[in-house]
């Protein structure tokens, strides 16, 4: 007999097992599932990722646990998703920019288990979060559920950590090209009698990043002329340390979960270049230290049977120090001239300290109105301070700015037609309170032209809906009028390569998504799934990073209007958890949509493609898994993936002859890896080769990425 649909949904909810190998569709056959046979009934359960994709919102979900044994960083896995593009400035630990359906930078917000990732400190990003700790990554495109309590405009990345109930220990160590080392440790101990739970996490990564730079200019032997040659990077070392301890209780009468947590992080980064590789740096550094303490509480049936409540409070002390105390002009061979100005800012020497204390408070109430109907209220307070002083420059006047955001949201969620239709309606209120104390370089930063204290209020709202016609065909649509308040980096600068822009105003956007998705179970383990999405983003006051001509410094500016239209699609094929094929392609057409200038003239940049951003890219991957190779309960997986990015112009495409324009070239990057695992995943060894064909790779103009690199990783999971 076939299990009815409600039973099926319940079973899906219960089945949370995700194997170390296999596809999103659960793979337990005989022992542990793919397809579960119950009295001749056949049930194909959906993974968390699959369920998310089939929700009302436009979401991509990436299962990290499946790849944890091979991955170096989360960015690797996310970059292969449809509609997602990550642009890196260099090697391990380099700054990166993630775009979702054409919107990028700070239009994208990052969360760790629903909390802003910033709380872990400035230095902690997707690139250095311990991979072993992560269960999956959810990528919301354009329309963001109200429960995040955030002002994301282009999308949100929510990183879900491992929440297994059983005790475990997970350790990995990897080493790779360019003197790269990475070690992660995470564990959980749960006392059966005491109910106390402890979750320690330790992570360390280091890379010298001394990959070869090709065709760089250096001085000849007598230093009277330039020659072009290949040389390794010489000042790009990166060290990241992260430690965290969570302790708490679960399943108590007064709390389903109550945890307190403390984390520390330290990220030291040598700086090798400015905004382009012509600007060589040999001494400057940026070092970050952070301490975070937080507590979270969750209780279902809080006060009444129909009310769930969760809350969180977090305090972060974040200290960024930019050391720019050398008057030197470096060349790629490491030689230098004692110069006239500092390396980063191209002005006087600075040893700038940024203290950015961050306070986060969140409360979330979820009230069930009736079966399939619920009301959710969420409030988030985010206060980020920005105290700057300079330990070197005696002329520098210390400043003290603060940016406070209050986001309150209310959403109504409904499940109709026995779960075939899923709707969500929400409204969000944003309050932005800015206190400005700095007055440096007023002509550039706008200091003196903005009110020192200001409070502004904005409203957002949206709807998401999904309807399943039948298993292979479902449709979903969503819309949000969203507001994105500038983050402190955009308004207040970063003290090294980003100038403040105190006059920056929030981005406002109307985001539309329309998608189709479905899954065909062809039998005998053959499963095909697909999704296709079209999207429109109508952004006003678009915040765009520009490279200032002055000193290669960056600054964020408002561009009056940008419209992004595009589509992305993905198709996946899986055969019995052995053969996996996937391909996706994305196209986003971002155009300047301000037709008239302030003076009423037709803007010459109207309808021009927004410069300096990739707009067409694709990924393909194939993997095959062999079982019981050599040892019992062993598996061998071979995997290869290919990434393609169409070239794009650095400046407005319309002006100047094509031959004279600077552009970021097309990329063809192929990666390959193998993973051998035995004793049912207890021991894992992987070898990965990135950029297999040693292609010259650029994500940004004149910022070369690493060539061919190898990474060997051992993982123990007990």
């Amino acid at each position, binding site marked *: 007999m076939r299990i009815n649909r409600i039973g099926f949904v319940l079973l899906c909810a219960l089945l949370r097992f995700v194997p170390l190998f296999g596809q999103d569709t659960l793979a337990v056959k005989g022992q542990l599932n793919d397809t579960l046979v119950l009295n001749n009934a056949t049930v194909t359960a959906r993974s968390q990722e699959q369920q998310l994709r089939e929700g009302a919102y436009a979401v991509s979900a990436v299962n990290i646990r499946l790849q944890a044994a091979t991955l170096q960083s989360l960015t690797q896995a996310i970059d292969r998703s449809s509609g997602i593009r990550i642009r890196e400035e260099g090697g391990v630990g380099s700054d990166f920019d993630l775009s979702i359906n054409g919107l990028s930078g700070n239009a994208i917000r990052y969360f760790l288990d629903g909390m802003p990732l910033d709380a872990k400190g400035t230095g902690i990003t997707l690139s250095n979060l311990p991979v072993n700790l992560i269960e999956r990554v959810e990528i919301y495109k354009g329309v963001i559920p109200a429960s995040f309590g955030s002002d994301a405009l282009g999308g949100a990345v929510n990183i879900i950590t491992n929440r297994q109930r059983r005790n475990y220990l997970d350790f990995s160590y990897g080493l790779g090209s360019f003197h790269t080392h990475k070690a992660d440790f995470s564990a959980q101990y749960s006392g059966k009698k005491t109910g106390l739970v402890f979750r320690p996490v330790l992570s360390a990564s280091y890379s010298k990043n001394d990959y070869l730079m090709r065709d760089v*200019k250096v*001085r000849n032997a007598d*230093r*009277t*002329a*330039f020659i072009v040659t290949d040389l390794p990077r010489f000042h790009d070392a990166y060290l990241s340390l992260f430690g965290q301890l969570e302790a708490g209780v679960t399943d108590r009468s007064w709390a389903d979960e109550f945890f307190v947590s403390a984390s520390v992080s330290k990220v030291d980064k040598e700086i090798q270049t*400015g905004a*382009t590789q*012509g*600007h*060589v740096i040999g001494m400057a550094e940026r070092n970050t230290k952070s301490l975070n303490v937080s507590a979270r509480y969750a209780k279902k049936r809080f006060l009444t049977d129909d009310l769930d409540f969760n809350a969180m409070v977090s305090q972060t002390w974040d200290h960024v120090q930019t050391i720019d105390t050398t*008057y030197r*002009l*470096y*060349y790629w061979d490491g030689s230098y*001239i*004692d*110069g*006239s*100005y500092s390396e980063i800012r*191209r*002005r*006087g*020497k600075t040893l700038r300290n940024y203290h950015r204390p961050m306070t986060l408070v969140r409360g979330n109430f979820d009230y069930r109105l009736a079966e399939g109907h619920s009301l959710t209220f969420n409030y988030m307070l985010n206060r980020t301070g920005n105290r700057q002083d300079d330990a070197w420059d005696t*002329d520098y006047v210390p400043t003290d700015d603060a940016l406070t955001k209050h986001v309150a949201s209310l959403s109504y969620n409904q499940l109709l037609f026995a779960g075939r239709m899923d709707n969500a309606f929400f409204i969000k209120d944003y309050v932005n309170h800015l206190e400005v104390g700095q007055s*440096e*370089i*007023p*002509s550039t930063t706008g200091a003196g032209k903005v009110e020192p204290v200001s409070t502004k209020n904005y409203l957002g709202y949206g709807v998401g809906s999904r309807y399943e016609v039948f298993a292979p065909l479902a449709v979903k649509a969503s819309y949000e009028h969203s507001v994105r308040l500038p983050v402190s980096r955009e308004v207040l600068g970063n003290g090294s390569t980003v100038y403040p822009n105190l006059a920056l105003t929030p981005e406002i956007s109307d985001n539309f998504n329309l998608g189709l998705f479905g899954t065909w179970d062809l039998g005998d383990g053959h499963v095909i799934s697909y999704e296709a999405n079209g999207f429109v983003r109508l952004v006003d006051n678009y915040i765009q990073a*520009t490279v*200032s*001509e*002055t*000193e*290669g410094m960056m600054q964020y*500016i408002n561009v009056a209007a940008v419209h992004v239209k595009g589509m992305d699609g993905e198709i996946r094929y899986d055969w019995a958890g052995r053969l996996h094929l996937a391909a996706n392609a994305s196209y986003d057409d971002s155009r300047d949509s301000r037709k008239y*200038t*302030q*003076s*009423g*003239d*037709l*803007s*010459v*940049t109207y309808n021009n493609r927004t*410069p300096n951003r990739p707009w067409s890219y694709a990924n393909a991957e194939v993997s095959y898994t062999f079982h019981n190779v050599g040892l019992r309960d062993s598996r061998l997986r071979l995997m290869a993936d290919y990434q393609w990015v169409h070239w794009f112009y*650095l*400046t*407005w495409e*319309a*002006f*100047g*002859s*094509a*031959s*004279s*324009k*600077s552009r970021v070239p097309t990329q063809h990057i192929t990666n390959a890896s193998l993973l051998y695992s035995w004793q049912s995943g207890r021991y894992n060894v992987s070898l990965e080769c990135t950029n297999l064909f040693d292609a010259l790779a650029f994500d940004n*103009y*004149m910022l070369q990425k690493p060539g061919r690199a190898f990474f060997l990783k051992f993982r123990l999971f007990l």
Partner: protein
Amino acid sequence: MKEMKRLLFVLTVAMASMMMMAVSCHEPEPEPEPEPVVLKDYNFDLFVCAVKHGGMSQNKNGTYVRSVPDLTADQPTVVFSGKGIDITQDYTLESITRGKYYYQVPQRATGGFVKFHIERNAAGEESIVEDAEVPFKNNVYSARKYTHAWINDSTTLVIVGTADKATKIIWSKLNESNLAVQSEGTFDISLPEGYGSFSTAGLLTYRKSDKKLYYFYFAKPAAGMSDAATSQVYIAIIDPATMKVESNTAVPGDIMEETAGSAYGELMQNMIMYDEADNLYVAGLRTIDGKEMGILRRIPMGQKTFDASWNGFPNPEGKLLTVQYLGNGKALAYSRDEALGTKIDSKSHFYTIINLANSSRERVKFNGKDLQYCGGRFSQRTAIANGKAYIGVGGEVEGEAEETNPTIYIYDCKTGVVEKGVELSKGFCFDIIRAMEAE
């Protein structure tokens, strides 16, 4: 009889002489012939920015260059869509020029100097050809933050900038041909007491008559504090052979408080000019009733400091931004009328012909209307070539739509006649017009 003939001859000669004298007394003195204009072939390189002006590093939309052989009205509209050179990433629009060549510390920051020229192929497509690129030797300069002068019959280029948080003034001599650094050093100039840094670059010029370099500079309380009170202007006179500072004289504030440009030398705008007699003119400013107003001072040939009694820009309406010598005692100035607005986009900037003989001035007009420009202070939209001044007019106006395309107007230095020249596509703002010698 013989004596009568002699008397008659004497009378005749005397009468003839008197008549000639009379004629010569009644005819006015003929005016000296203007110096003949040596006609050369020029290319006009038009530097523009899209949407907004790009001076003072305010460019957010890229810098584009078209090189055209003629700017007369019969030429087709100069377009930038798919045409011209996008120099945004590699070069600064601020540059030293001579003949057909550009010399600069490039935007791409490779740590040296570059020399290039713009070529145009048979199809009219422009491209940049680099002629030399050399690394810095010991002294290091930032893109656009230096001043320059030509010495040794223009075979040597002297570059001057500041170092160590603008507390030292450094110099380098470069060979014009291959940019080889010949010598370098630091001027023996100390900061005036009570001041923390020099003005970013100052202004350097070479005077042929006394074979000296003149360096105009002032100081600020601290680097980067643009609104802070500055020191007096100083004139350092330097022997170009030894680069020794021979004298360093403070200019009284009632003569000049600041030079018109201090940050970018004359890489973008001209603030220094010479007349045929080698009098040296410098544009500057003074505070009058709390407002910074333009002033034009002169160091007469043979003297070392400003003539306090002479001001070529009396009763100023506002700041004097650029000056260029046109010949025959006339100069072309670009200045602002404070009463009409001081914002960068205010329609308050005008072109003026200054008669240096009597310090009178008259706005350049076309069809009876002043030629205005509103794109701000940081530009040089005029070029002088073959006895004509090419003046760029147009661009954005705060709060108003453009009535016409950006247009070149051509002022005939000899006749004073202004005619309309070529137009540029709408939506682009003039930053610099450069007259570059053709091959």
